[in-house]
């Protein structure tokens, strides 16, 4: 994310509080933009449809359907998200940008094909009893979302963060407007609005990509499928991470006591879902801090460290840079902790009012508290994983994601067994375990950074 780091540094160099604020705001929007926009958008559509769409169940059906679409498309594309990111980064680094677009076209072909086939089988096999229109919309939505995630990766690889956020803003504006116009058609209308909005988003992204990359003689290339091009460790960590963070939700959705059938095969857990999606809104400040720290200080010293190693810096200088990396990592993680702690405190203080204002039962409150802490930990975990990616310790990432998946499944199941007052703790605890393990390993890896860089290459 060097490009973003550069812009952030420019803002920070102004050396004023306003500049600092700008930098953090910018980082916050960039880092959590798509994510937050989709949550807000969906909640907003639901909010505006209240009283217009009958029965009210239709709104829930819409929201649940969209949640499932996002989840399933993220898990499906999880397989190639990280691997393909790395492939693009490597291609750009070795100045083979010519092969990037043809490979993008091929990935698109692959993703639309596979998601289409998977989706078709799903709507035929599992969605009996729902309307054909609904099924077709779900199929389209699934294919479009899968394509969007791939395009997002592609644009992140190009450092087009601002554009991504702009495109998401545009897409969700269309989604909300579409849903508003079509809400008279009930749940299907809302979903159609969602699909149209996302198709616009996808088109916007593709247009952006085509503007950046001239289309040369070659339209398709399958370099990314060559053995080693995407690293199997990255393929697995992408899948494992996405699966792991959704595992607790899936368990709650399909555990009879905590869930109810909403539409077709889709079940939801009303007690579990609302708080956690609200909690995700609280990660914005943490993500902002994380981005600023990692992309400015960390990357700066990281680059200087490897430059010193390559260009023949003195050992003192190399170790100095290593210490600075260590310091910025520590500082960054500590700042995420601080800022998330403030967010948690705010939610503790204002949570009740917030829920009342949103018209949600305050029974959700204890769960919201836990989920805010969990979401904060997830930001820390993202930070740790990101640093491991920078250090190219891919196997550690796979290991951590496996821990997260296993512990999340185990502890969430345990929390279900222990009863309602433990809900949410499974997710939070599994994140805590993973974060602690990650930090322990990070500390060891950073201590041995020069040793490994020199002796074990």
């Amino acid at each position, binding site marked *: 994310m060097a490009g973003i780091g550069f812009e952030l540094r420019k803002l920070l160099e102004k050396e004023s509080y306003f500049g600092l604020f700008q930098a953090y705001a910018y980082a916050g929007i960039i880092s959590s933009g798509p994510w937050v926009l989709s949550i807000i958008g969906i909640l907003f559509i639901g909010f505006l449809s209240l009283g217009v769409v009958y029965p009210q169940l239709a709104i829930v059906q819409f929201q649940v359907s969209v949640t499932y679409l996002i989840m399933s498309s993220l898990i499906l594309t999880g397989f190639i998200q990280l691997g393909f990111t790395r492939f693009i980064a490597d291609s750009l680094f070795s100045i083979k940008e010519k092969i990037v677009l043809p490979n993008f076209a091929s990935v698109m072909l692959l993703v639309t094909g596979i998601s289409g086939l998977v989706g078709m089988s799903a709507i035929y096999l599992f969605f009996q009893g729902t309307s054909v229109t609904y099924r077709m919309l779900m199929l389209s939505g699934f294919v479009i979302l899968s394509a969007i995630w791939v395009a997002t990766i592609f644009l992140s690889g190009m450092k087009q963060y601002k554009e991504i956020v702009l495109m998401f803003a545009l897409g969700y504006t269309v989604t909300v407007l579409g849903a508003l116009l079509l809400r008279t058609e009930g749940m299907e209308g809302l979903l159609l609005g969602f699909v149209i909005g996302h198709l616009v988003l996808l088109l916007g992204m593709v247009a952006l990509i085509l503007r950046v990359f001239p289309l040369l003689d070659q339209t398709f290339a399958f370099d990314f499928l060559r053995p080693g091009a995407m690293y199997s460790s990255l393929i697995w960590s992408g899948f494992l991470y996405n699966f792991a963070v959704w595992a607790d939700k899936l368990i709650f959705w399909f555990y009879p006591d905590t869930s109810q059938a909403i539409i077709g095969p889709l079940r939801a857990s009303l007690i579990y879902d609302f708080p956690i999606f609200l909690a995700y809104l609280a990660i914005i400040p943490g993500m902002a801090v994380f981005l600023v720290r990692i992309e400015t200080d960390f990357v700066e010293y990281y680059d200087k460290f490897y430059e*010193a190693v390559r260009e023949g810096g003195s050992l003192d200088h190399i170790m100095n840079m290593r210490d600075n990396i260590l310091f910025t990592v520590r500082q960054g993680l500590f700042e995420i902790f601080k800022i998330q702690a403030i967010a948690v405190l705010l939610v503790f203080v204002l949570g009740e009012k917030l829920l009342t204002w949103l018209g949600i039962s305050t029974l959700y409150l204890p769960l919201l508290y836990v989920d805010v802490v969990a979401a904060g930990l997830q930001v820390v975990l993202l930070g740790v994983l990101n640093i491991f990616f920078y250090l190219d310790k891919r196997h550690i990432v796979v290991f951590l994601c496996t821990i997260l998946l296993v512990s999340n499944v185990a502890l969430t199941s345990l929390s279900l067994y222990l009863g309602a007052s433990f809900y949410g703790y499974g997710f939070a605890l599994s994140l805590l375990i993973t974060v602690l393990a990650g930090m322990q390993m990070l500390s060891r890896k950073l201590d041995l950074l020069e040793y490994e860089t020199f*002796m074990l290459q």
Partner: protein
Amino acid sequence: MNFPRAESADIGLLLEGTFPYVSGGVSSWVNQIIRGFPHYKFALVFIGSQPEDYGDIKYALPDNVVHLEVHYLNNKQEMPPVRPRKGDTKVFADVRHMHECFRFPATHKDGLETFRKLIPEMHEGGGAGLDTFLYSEESWAFVKEKYQQHCSDPSFVDYFWTVRSMHTPVWMLAEIARNFIPVRAFHTVSTGYAGLLGALLKERTGCPLILSEHGIYTKERKIDLFQAQWVRDNRNVFQRDPTEISYFRQLWIRFFQALGTRCYDSSDHIVALFEANRLRQVEDGAPAERTCNIPNGVNVPRFAALRALRPASPPPVLCLIGRVVPIKDIKTYIRAMRTIVNRMPQAEGWIAGPEDEDPDYVAECRDLVDGLGLNDNVKFLGFQQMTELLPKVGLGVLSSISEGLPLVILEGFAAGVPAVSTDVGSCRQLIYGLDEADRALGAAGCIVGIADPQALAEAALELLGDEAAWRAASEAGIKRVETYYTQERMFDSYRAIYEEALSWQA
């Protein structure tokens, strides 16, 4: 190429960059020794840099060479698999101590004992194996520590790789030592890598080690290193101390000194060619009581027969016999030829010796001949048979900047050819005589300073232009070689050493 292989032998000869792949003074000497002791079975180890640097074997292997193995230190070695490990603190304490011994020989005297402790650990998986050196945390800490204590070059990465590439051959040598066939005594013809191999073999087996040094290995390496272009220097204007050579040069110099120390400490007999070299060995740490001088000797009758073949008056032909390499300073000879030809237009300057060792230098020499307009007078003859060459030569020339006890001068003397030589090695002793009686034989030519073409030319002109002086010098040379430098004298001395060494087991 099929090398002879054997299960065992009498003497293990350790040869670095010489016989049988390189022709030259030392190689001829080795050939002479092997053939001089036909009743001993020799096992040879040749250590070279990389196969491309050598052509085919240059000598017919004598029948009593029963075993020959060839190893190249710069060959891309298969490195042990990369695996992190801690390393043994105790072993590294010994390693640290041995380095202290190298650095402060005056105060740390137990280097040999420490070395003995480390040798059994020098295998893969051992406390001081190559894998430990390459990948262990202890080793990393040690490298860091030494860099911080001593390195004045800013580039750590250069330091790191210099240390790595410098030390890896040591384990290659340990591997060679471990797999070598049983012999009763070892004889190394230089310190350096061959010398270290000798020390490793001696300490492993307990068999006696003989060291014969023709030049002084560490000194020659030092000259190379002063001039080497490949050694990096990353100091900037503020860091550069003009009186200090680049740290990596120092590092390499000290590395070769350390190799020398190991070899001197383990050798039972340390043989020099002449007194100055022996003193230098002692100065470099060789125990004085184990040193002695054995000058080279030539097969006089073989060359004596050539005297009759020469024309009545000395031909105006100068000849430098030797490899075309910088250490011979062929350029000074060529420059001197300019002056000689100015005054004696019919004079010819020959250069007889192989040209495959340093093609760049050969090209430079040819350019110089070209540049000085000497194309008609200076001839590169390539390798020549001495018996055919010497009768046509009027004056032997040696313009080297460093020498031991050059056989070519002695062979020339035996054939009645006087010589002009630079004042290096034992040349002064060969031309003017060593002790009173020797000096009384007269001057067999002339000694001039190094890199002084004018003086070289003057001296050569004097000898070639004055037939009486030439005859006197020729006579003195013949007498000197017949009195002091016969092959028999040399063989007798070595026979005594070999017999003593081989009797060790009995």
